[in-house]
């Protein structure tokens, strides 16, 4: 079925040589593509490939203006546009559905669809008190909502309060709202299927096809390969801020997309320096773990961590990789069975893993990892003081903090990890991201753990600090025999430090491969293409793989 543009006419959207750098950090370069009327474009890429930056530019988000604008041109109907705010983008007919819902829970579906664009009726009081005293025309509001819903071709009662809807229908309500906006011609859907069940996702894909048939163009951001292949007319794959492949489903294969998305970037990092034989001794055994962490739900994870290895856990955002560490550390409600060196780890009790010698560096550095308003020294020693009773000295019958020992310890880490600060008394909130991360590591190291979880170790920190952090992890692993589990969205980073890497998809382990496996094998796992495909890809390219499926 061809719903393409008619010959000479300008395409709805043309992106020409668009680039963007946040100060010295280049995140997009020379992006080019076009999108015709009524076509669906799949935008595919790893986390951090530049998808969100591109959408922020397209949507006129303020953060782009504040950091010096962008390069290149964006043309709508062949005319160049400069959006200064999301309002400008809305007026030009661009609608966006974000991953987080933007709905009022107590309002009905209809009220949400027409939110702040209600049908209004004039009354004389308006003259005295202004436009906001116009009354609502509820009949018309309902009619508009029903119309938008019917264009999506779904079953949804517009008088139901949002709070009573299942997640999938909240998503439809959001889309219906964009459709109800007059002149919405381009719809951006950011990972809309991430929160949907499979049947709901099918309905959504169907609705997308219908909308396209009605002439609305769609940019569909997804990492689910099958969905992209089944619904899109064009596919654009971004990697490291560049378009690496522009194709159509007919011309490409799952494999080509996977390898384009992940790419071969071995030249950038040196890769695992040595092939190491990890020991056969099991450090941690995870069975049927589920974790209720909002946005990172873990559904059923089975995983074995061997003593002395560095295990990587990768996966797309929202698939549950972060939930694993948080669940085991007792920070979110969890269930299942976790044993550590044969001893049972009590879930939902943060004290239990700590006392067994398991520590974690949280991905939420500022929220969970640090006491921003306290000194570096206090941040580093608190956990050891609490769980192990160290850094205390006797004061009569009481034991009080030994400030001398605390400062001593903090100074040691400041020197070891090259933490840039005025002194150990400086408040942590005044440090840069990289130095804050080093404080988090110091805190974890000081508990002298036998197993350490490190989540997103390099997120939001500069290149120099990145190297120190990763090298430090390796050093502690080699020198102290510390078993380390690194959880990261950046596959290349995992490949450079880990021995084995597990990929998490939909809350379960999609597969475990040695870090030396070629990257497209991981690409398959990331895109939910299944372990078998990944194994095949791995076998094609190298020998000696160790693929496992959950």
């Amino acid at each position, binding site marked *: 079925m061809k719903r393409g543009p008619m010959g000479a006419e300008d395409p709805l959207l043309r992106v020409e040589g668009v680039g963007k750098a946040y100060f010295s950090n280049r995140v997009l370069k020379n992006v080019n593509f076009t999108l015709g009327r009524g076509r669906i474009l799949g935008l595919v890429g790893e986390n951090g490939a530049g998808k969100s930056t591109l959408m922020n530019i397209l949507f006129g988000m303020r953060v782009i203006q504040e950091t010096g604008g962008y390069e290149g041109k964006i043309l709508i109907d062949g005319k160049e546009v400069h959006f200064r705010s999301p309002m400008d983008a809305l007026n030009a007919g661009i609608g966006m559905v974000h991953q987080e819902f933007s709905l009022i829970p107590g309002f009905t579906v209809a009220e949400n669809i027409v939110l702040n664009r209600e049908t209004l009726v004039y009354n004389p009081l308006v003259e005295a008190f202004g436009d906001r005293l116009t009354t609502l025309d509820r009949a018309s509001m309902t009619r508009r909502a029903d119309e938008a819903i019917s264009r999506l071709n779904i079953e949804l009662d517009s008088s139901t309060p949002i709070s009573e809807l299942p997640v999938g229908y909240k998503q439809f309500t959001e889309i219906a709202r964009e459709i109800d906006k007059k002149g919405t011609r381009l719809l951006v859907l950011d990972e809309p299927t991430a929160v949907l069940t499979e049947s709901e996702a099918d309905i959504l894909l169907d609705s997308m096809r219908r909308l396209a048939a009605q002439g609305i163009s769609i940019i569909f951001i997804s990492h689910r390969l099958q969905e992209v292949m089944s619904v899109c007319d064009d596919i654009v794959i971004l990697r490291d801020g560049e378009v690496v492949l522009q194709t159509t489903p007919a011309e490409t294969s799952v494999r080509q997309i996977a390898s384009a998305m992940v790419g071969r970037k071995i030249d950038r990092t040196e890769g695992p320096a040595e092939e190491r034989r990890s020991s056969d001794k099991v450090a941690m055994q995870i069975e049927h773990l589920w974790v209720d962490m909002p946005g990172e739900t873990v559904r059923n994870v089975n995983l074995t961590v061997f003593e002395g290895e560095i295990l990587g856990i990768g996966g797309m955002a929202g698939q549950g990789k972060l939930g694993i560490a948080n669940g085991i550390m007792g920070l979110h409600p969890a269930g299942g069975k976790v044993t550590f060196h044969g001893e049972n780890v009590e879930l939902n009790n*943060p*004290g239990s893993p700590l006392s067994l010698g398991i520590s974690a560096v949280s991905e939420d550095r500022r929220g969970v*990892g640090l006491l921003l308003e306290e000194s570096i020294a206090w941040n580093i020693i608190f956990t050891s003081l609490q769980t192990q009773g160290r850094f205390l000295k006797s004061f009569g019958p009481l034991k009080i903090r030994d400030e001398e020992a605390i400062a001593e310890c903090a100074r040691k880490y400041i020197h070891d990890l090259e933490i840039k600060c005025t002194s150990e008394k400086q408040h942590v909130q005044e440090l840069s991201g990289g130095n804050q991360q080093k404080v988090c590591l110091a805190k974890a190291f000081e508990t002298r753990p036998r197993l350490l979880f490190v989540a997103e170790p390099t997120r939001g920190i500069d290149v120099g600090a990145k190297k120190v952090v990763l090298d430090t992890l390796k050093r502690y692993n080699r020198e102290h025999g510390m078993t380390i589990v690194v959880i990261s969205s950046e596959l290349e980073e995992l490949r450079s430090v880990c021995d084995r890497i597990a990929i998490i998809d939909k809350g379960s382990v999609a597969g475990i491969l040695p870090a030396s496996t070629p990257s497209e094998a991981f690409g398959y796992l990331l895109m939910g293409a299944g372990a078998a495909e990944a194994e095949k890809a791995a076998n094609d390219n190298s020998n000696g793989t160790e693929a496992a499926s959950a």
Partner: protein
Amino acid sequence: MNRIKKFIEEAGWPRILIAVFLVILFIVAPFVGVPVDAAFSDTLVRFGMNGVLVLAMVPMVQSGCGLNFGLPLGIIAGLLGAVTSVELEAKGIPGVFTAMAIATPIAVVLGWGYGLLLNKVKGEEMMIATYVGFSSVAFMCIMWLVLPYSSSNMVWGYAGVGLRTTVSVEEFWQRAISDIAAFNIGDAFYFPTGMFLFFLLLCGLMWVFMRTRTGTAMTTVGSNPDYARASGVNINRMRTLSVILSTWLGALGIIVYEQSFGFIQLYMGPFMMAFPAVAALLIGGASVKKASIINVIVGTFLFQGILTMTPSVINSMLQTDMSEVIRIIVSNGMILYALTRVTKVRS
């Protein structure tokens, strides 16, 4: 210039205004005929009277429960102790300590229940604390009428039942603590050494406590509960403990207050007592989330200084008593300032 600016920013202009105002009051006082020694002595006495009540704010602020507007609960425990010791006719220093000994278990039980309640309503502690305080005062109004106290020093003469609104402790333990090693300089200057020592002793104990493992954990819970939890600290237990401590200090505080004042004020007496204590702590430089012992000492001194000096100085200058109005504006203005400054709200 920048340093001054930074100093003002850190201290907050209301605090500086109040400090400057107090200094001006002391400077102006001799010129309008107010005896400075008497005024200063009054300030010191009131400082000692109120210090422990202000100190009672610290544990709850540190553990993140916010300003303890529920102080009346602790005060009630103290009142029960005081009234019971009078009923037992305990006199002098043993009398005061009898009162404290009786008040302690009551404060612990009340504080424990109050702590459990506040754990259920995280994020809205302050409003609920205010009304828990009010309700308990109103409830005790009924109790004062009903409880079977019979000492003729305390019950209404004509009915023979029900406690009086104010009970004098003159014959029992008035200034029992204050007068330990107290001295006079001249006619007007009186220094309540014992009361100061007692207050400093409690401050010292608090200082030590805040440095123990438990005290460190308490501060951390207030600073970042998620961090504390990730380090294996039981947040609810720390919070409950801090509430018990605050309540107990409130009980001791009111007994210290009464022995200096000479009267036990029942019924609606404790109703508004949380507000001056809260205001004093904030004036001393504390915020809704952080308070230190220095804040307590500085704040109590500044606030009580203003309360003592304004009536005398302003009266002499304007021949009118504006102290009540100034008290209301200063204390509530200070609380308001602190509440609006913290914009980050954790839920």
